């Protein structure tokens, strides 16, 4: 169980991380997401003890590290996977993985589990990006860390590899049964891999919850926009139901929203039809995505909505269409700004 209380980090006079509070279960994977410069990587470095903390404490099992009494990184029993892999170039794969191990059976175990058996005697320079990251992961897990930090582990890899390696890493972490904090700026990665998602903005944790809750009931418009396509429509919230120009749906009020609200609409909450007399918008642009199409529709009331439909429904930009809210699950409602 990892417990972080009121953790703050300053760079000079600038506060980069402000009063972070976290608790992590025994084999839980927490995804930390946020735009560039939001303090994600700083949090990892602070947890590992690589940069000084200005306030707060970190606690894991037997040890506690505070701003006044910091614990050296080598005493924390933490594993870290780096964006640039950080493999030691003068050592072979095997020597890297068993860097501080007396007994190398764990090194063998993780190397074979991650399919890097035959590269034992290879120097890191000869490996591809994906192989390097597997070795780095094997090195981290072989040292039996009490928790693992992953700093954008997939950002230096090409897209095709990213998708498969993401699952490999997740299952390896689950096999090892260690808590992990995984930093990424990729929302797909955040939603699909983690048990929980934490969204950061300017060093403050805006929301931390399950991926489903973060996506469907975001704590703020920022979180809503960061995790996926988001459109907003004005409506009136009364007795748990929102009334809008394009239909009525059940609502989840955010921060006690009531009365005049903006409702969060995702592209799959809507349906669209043409060739009838009730059209209420005009297609601005269309984007073909293979299995689906994404349309941006300029509504007659001045708002813009995005809708995703089956690829079989093809309309040209400029077509007048009717948009209707068809979802049955509650939509998040925010106080009118």
């Amino acid at each position, binding site marked *: 169980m990892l417990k972080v209380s009121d953790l703050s980090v300053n760079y000079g006079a600038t506060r980069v991380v402000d009063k972070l509070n976290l608790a992590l279960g025994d084999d839980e994977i927490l995804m930390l997401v946020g735009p560039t410069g939001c303090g994600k990587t700083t949090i990892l470095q602070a947890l*590992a003890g690589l940069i000084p903390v200005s306030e707060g404490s970190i606690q894991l099992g037997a040890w506690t590290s505070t701003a006044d009494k910091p614990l050296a990184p080598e005493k924390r029993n933490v594993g870290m996977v780096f964006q640039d892999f950080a493999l030691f170039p003068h050592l072979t794969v095997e020597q890297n993985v068993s860097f501080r191990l007396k007994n190398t059976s764990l090194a063998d175990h993780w190397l074979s589990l991650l399919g890097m058996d035959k590269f034992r005697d290879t120097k890191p320079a000869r490996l591809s990006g994906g192989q390097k990251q597997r070795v780095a992961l094997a090195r981290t897990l072989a040292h039996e860390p009490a928790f693992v930090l992953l700093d954008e582990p997939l950002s230096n890899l090409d897209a095709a590899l990213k998708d498969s390696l993401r699952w490999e890493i997740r299952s390896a972490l689950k096999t090892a049964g260690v808590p992990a904090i995984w930093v990424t700026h990729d929302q797909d990665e955040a939603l699909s891999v983690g048990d929980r998602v934490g969204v950061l903005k300017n060093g403050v944790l805006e929301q931390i919850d399950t991926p489903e809750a973060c996506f469907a009931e975001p704590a703020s418009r920022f979180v809503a926009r960061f995790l996926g396509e988001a459109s907003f429509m004005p409506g009136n919230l009364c007795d748990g139901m929102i009334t809008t120009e394009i239909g009525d749906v059940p609502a989840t009020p955010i921060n006690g929203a009531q009365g005049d609200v903006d409702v969060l609409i995702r592209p799959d909450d809507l349906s669209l039809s043409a060739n009838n007399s009730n059209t209420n918008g005009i297609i601005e642009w269309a984007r073909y995505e293979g299995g689906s199409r994404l349309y941006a529709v300029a509504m007659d009331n001045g708002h813009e909505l995005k809708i995703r439909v089956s690829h079989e429904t093809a309309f040209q930009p400029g077509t007048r269409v009717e948009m209707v809210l068809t979802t049955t699950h509650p939509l998040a409602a925010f106080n009118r700004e």
Partner: protein
Amino acid sequence: MSKWPKPYPLALLIALLAILPVGVLVSLASDSAQLFDTHNLRVLGNTLALVVLTIVGSVIMGVPLALFTAYVQGPLKKLWLVLLAAPLALPSYIGAFAMYFSFGRGGEIESLTGVPTPAVSGLWGTALIMSLYTYPFVMMTTRASLLSQDASLVNASRLLGLSLWRSLWRVVLPRASNSIAAGALLAALYALSDFGTPAIMGLDTFTRVIFVEYNAFGLSQAAMLSLQLMVIVALVLFLESRVGGATERPGRHLTLWPARWQYFTMLMSFLPIVAMAIVLPMAIFMVWLVREGTGGFEFSYAWNSAYASFLAAIAAVVCALPVAHAAIAGKAGRLMERITYFGFGVPGIVMGTALVYLGLQLPFLYQTLALLVVAYVLRFIPLAVGSIRTTAENLDASMVKAARVLGASPREAFMRITLPLSLRGMVAGAALVFLEAMRELPATLMLGPTGFETLATYMWRVYEAGYFGRAAVPGLLLVLLSGLGLILMLSGERRAEFTLSEDERR
């Protein structure tokens, strides 16, 4: 951060030491009677003429060779590159020595073959030899620029109707002009500071005249001349710092596949250069070795060279460590590094003059090996700083962090990660300093303790006495050392593949 990075104080001290020679020269020259006279004017004229001719010669040879080695594909491409770059590693006084005794009336070529040859001496002879040994500067800088140019621009120009040659002239070379200029300025710097070549060829340039003044006990006049030379050197260094490299869009460079006969013709036209610069000196030394044996040569000369150079290499690396780390730590550190680079621009003869005077003021240093080692260190420390800094920079900060989070203490991380990874740079830097010091001539002549004969100074004595046959062994040894230096420089490009394996702990 208000705290000074740790390596700063030491680096500052070393940087201050590096500009010490100039301070010494200024105080010494103030005793001099003459600021400038007609004799000076002639020396200045000779020096500038030599510099201009060297620039012209090295560009005429270097640019076509750069085009050839960068773009033309053919058999044994790597070998030609190494051979064509090789004169860079050879000190030009070796070439001057060999050619001085080979050409002209009564020269070795005439006595061997009976064919009379014109003498190589004076301004034209010096310029020829300088060009032969400095064109690789132009070739290498230009080649690097040519390799960075995207071929699609040449292709575009050809599709727009220009021939290949006109495309090279109008599209490729203009974009390489900065690099050509940088190489030419390096050649100019070499021509300005080299002592051996003009001295052997009998051309009164600054370096030769300084040595003459020094021998005539005109130390303050030598200092004045040294300062005048330094002004020109500073001017060239300034020009060089203004020549910026253009950033090119990355892409695949041009490749040309000439027909067999075309390739052969190109090689044939470059052959005289290699023959003159490398084959001729080696052949002449071999002839002398066979004819005259090893007479007069004592093993102690080689030992003295190696001993002094070894001390210099160790001292240079020790001094370079704080400078290199200061350069990485911050802006002020980079300035300190720049200052130590200064020594590289100071001609050996100038360094010698300054330190001789220093020795006279500090009797405990006078005529000691220590003073010679100091001269070597001040001159060649940039080589050590450069290679240490490169490896230390490549040492990713996350590497040490990774070791720490794996449980290594700072000490263990240093011993197992930082040290082995920077050791290569230290070894390479020490080797470069060692090889340069082995071949250094003027400062060794001026500062070597009495009776302390090295390979280079022995060659000079042989030249002065005219017993050229005795130069065979030291000459060949110096060529061999230069070959080692070349190998080291070339392997520097592939340093990533150096292996330094950790001891097997299991």
